[in-house]
């Protein structure tokens, strides 16, 4: 019999979540340029090495300078996140540490070593090293930055699709049994490709934004023109690539996180030949299980959701109500049944622990077998109500659709910029140059809303189906978390203001007039 004995401090849970979200938000303001801009520097530097045209080197150095500013100020913002796992999420860290720690360790050893070594070669070796070796150092910096993204995204993907591990009831933690399953899980592969692609999109539109500003000011026309060509091609290819990998994401989510997909689409009642909502407004105050209309209005692409989720235009896509209350016809277990099985798993674990304490081997094996049978629903045993499996519906629905709309708009924008710059007509369209300037923060909004879909959409879980967020926190005071929340917010805001000011000054000052010399 499981006894209730403690209360959860939801102030602690919510402030811990808020702190992680806030620090991750600030961290993500710097990372896309760190990853994406190195590729643009590498491409422009490649043109210099191939053609010997010193203007390409001047262009390369200018973007490298902006990269340095972003890197110097942004590096280390991820340290806080790493520390937070231990301080604010100690329960999660213990339960998942054997799997979570490995990618983070790999990130530090491989990626940071590679990135930090070749960044130094890149910055300090300009004009001093053999051209081809220097170019190689730029590519290795880009590779290092990408590699560090790989490992952290593998760790994050595991939270959404936990594989390659077994739960050890003696130590109360998951233990990795298959590293390759974790590394090459479809979630990890797709998340990595999609996220790195988004960094390239953001960097491309950063270059377009700065170059557009120069063109409006009638400055640096050759630098801007060439940069826009590079960035528009890079941006167009990466935007299309992000859309394609987004399709992969939707497929994975449909297979393994059907509640998240239903929330993303505001799909309350499942359908065959389910349409994809292109645009829509949810009915305010709509609750799970009520009879209110789902939408005030919506525009759908018929059959598209079934195709995206199941590669079959006639496939049944479960809605929120199906997943919460069950659907016998389509073999969908209700959340209530999962909660019952989860409670059986927790009870079996408690009885296993008691049997182990008394040394009763037979009982231990019996309860261990029962635990293993109901283990996939372990996390559900903690939920208060079946409706808890689908939360924050308006936030996730609107975030998803904002991300998709902006994503497709950026494809059109990149194509337009490319066409007009190649035809040498871009400067005539001043309104488009103004849009180009705004495309950079708008690209960031798409990226941030994507993270909201991924991370808030995973709630109520820290580990999908196995560990709810509310029991993942540390046993510390909420006051300590609130204090550090505001300390971090202040420090990170100061860094952000410094970045914006230094970056702005560097852009206003423009690239170096002289050829050769250092790049800072």
């Amino acid at each position, binding site marked *: 019999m499981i006894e209730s004995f403690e209360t959860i401090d939801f102030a602690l849970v919510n402030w811990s979540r808020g702190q992680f979200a806030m620090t991750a938000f600030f961290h993500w303001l710097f990372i896309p340029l760190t990853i994406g801009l190195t590729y643009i520097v590498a491409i422009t530097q490649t043109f210099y090495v191939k053609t010997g045209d010193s203007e390409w080197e001047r262009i390369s150095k200018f973007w490298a300078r902006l990269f340095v500013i972003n890197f110097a*100020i942004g590096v280390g913002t991820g340290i806080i996140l790493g520390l937070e796992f231990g*301080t604010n999420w100690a329960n999660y860290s213990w339960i998942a540490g054997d799997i979570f720690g490995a990618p983070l360790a790999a990130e530090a050893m491989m990626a940071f070593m590679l990135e930090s070594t070749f960044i130094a070669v890149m910055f*300090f070796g300009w004009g*001093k090293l053999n051209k081809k070796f220097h170019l190689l150092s730029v590519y290795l910096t880009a590779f290092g930055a990408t590699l560090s993204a790989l490992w952290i995204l593998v760790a994050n993907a595991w939270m959404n699709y936990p594989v390659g591990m077994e739960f050890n009831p003696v130590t109360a933690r998951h233990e990795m049994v298959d590293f390759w399953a974790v590394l090459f899980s479809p979630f990890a592969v797709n998340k990595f490709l999609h996220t790195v692609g988004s960094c390239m999109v953001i960097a491309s539109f950063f270059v377009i934004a700065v170059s557009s500003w120069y063109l409006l000011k009638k400055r640096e026309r050759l630098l801007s023109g060439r940069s826009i060509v590079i960035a528009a091609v890079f941006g167009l290819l990466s935007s299309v690539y992000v859309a394609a990998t987004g399709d992969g994401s939707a497929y994975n989510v449909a297979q393994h996180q059907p509640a998240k997909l239903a929330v993303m689409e505001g799909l309350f009642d499942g359908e065959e030949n389910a349409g994809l909502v292109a645009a829509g407004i949810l009915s305010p105050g709509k609750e799970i299980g009520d009879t209110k209309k789902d939408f005030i209005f919506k525009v759908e692409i018929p059959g598209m959701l079934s195709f995206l989720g199941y590669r079959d235009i006639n496939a049944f896509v479960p809605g929120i109500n199906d997943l919460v209350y069950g659907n016998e016809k389509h073999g969908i277990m209700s959340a209530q049944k999962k909660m019952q099985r989860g409670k059986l798993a927790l009870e079996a674990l*408690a009885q296993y622990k008691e049997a182990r304490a008394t040394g009763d081997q037979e009982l231990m094996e019996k309860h261990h077998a029962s635990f293993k049978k109901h283990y996939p629903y372990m996390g559900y045993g903690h*939920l208060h109500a079946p409706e808890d499996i689908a939360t924050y519906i308006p936030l996730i629905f609107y975030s998803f659709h904002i991300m998709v709309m902006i994503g497709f708009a950026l494809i059109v924008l990149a194509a337009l910029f490319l066409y007009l710059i190649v035809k040498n007509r871009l400067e005539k369209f001043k309104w488009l140059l103004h849009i180009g300037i705004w495309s950079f923060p708008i690209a960031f909004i798409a990226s941030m809303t994507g993270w909201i879909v991924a991370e808030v959409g995973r709630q109520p879980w820290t580990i999908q189906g196995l560990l709810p967020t509310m029991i993942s926190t540390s*046993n510390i005071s909420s006051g*300590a978390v609130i204090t550090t929340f505001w300390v971090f917010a202040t420090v990170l805001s100061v*860094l952000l203001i410094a970045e914006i000011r230094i970056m702005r000054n560097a852009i206003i000052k423009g690239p170096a007039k002289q050829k050769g010399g250092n790049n*800072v």
Partner: protein
Amino acid sequence: MQHRITNIPERIFRIAAEVVQHIYGIFRNSKTARLLFLILVIKLSIFYGFFKSYWFPVHLEPKWESEQHQIDEVTERIINTPKNNHDD
């Protein structure tokens, strides 16, 4: 042959000195480089020097007497359903 061998440390030292001088020259001539380096030093001092070395271990580190204590506490939280498992 001996002449070449004894020259190697001298050559390495000379190359290292050139690299250091080169880097020093960059910082000497660029205000931006100095500013970024200063921000880097201050920031890493705050993160590693203050937060990681003092604040987190002293004020935020969960306190367990041993690994078994941690296992027992985590197991208790997993096994037992709290009275309030819903944020009202």
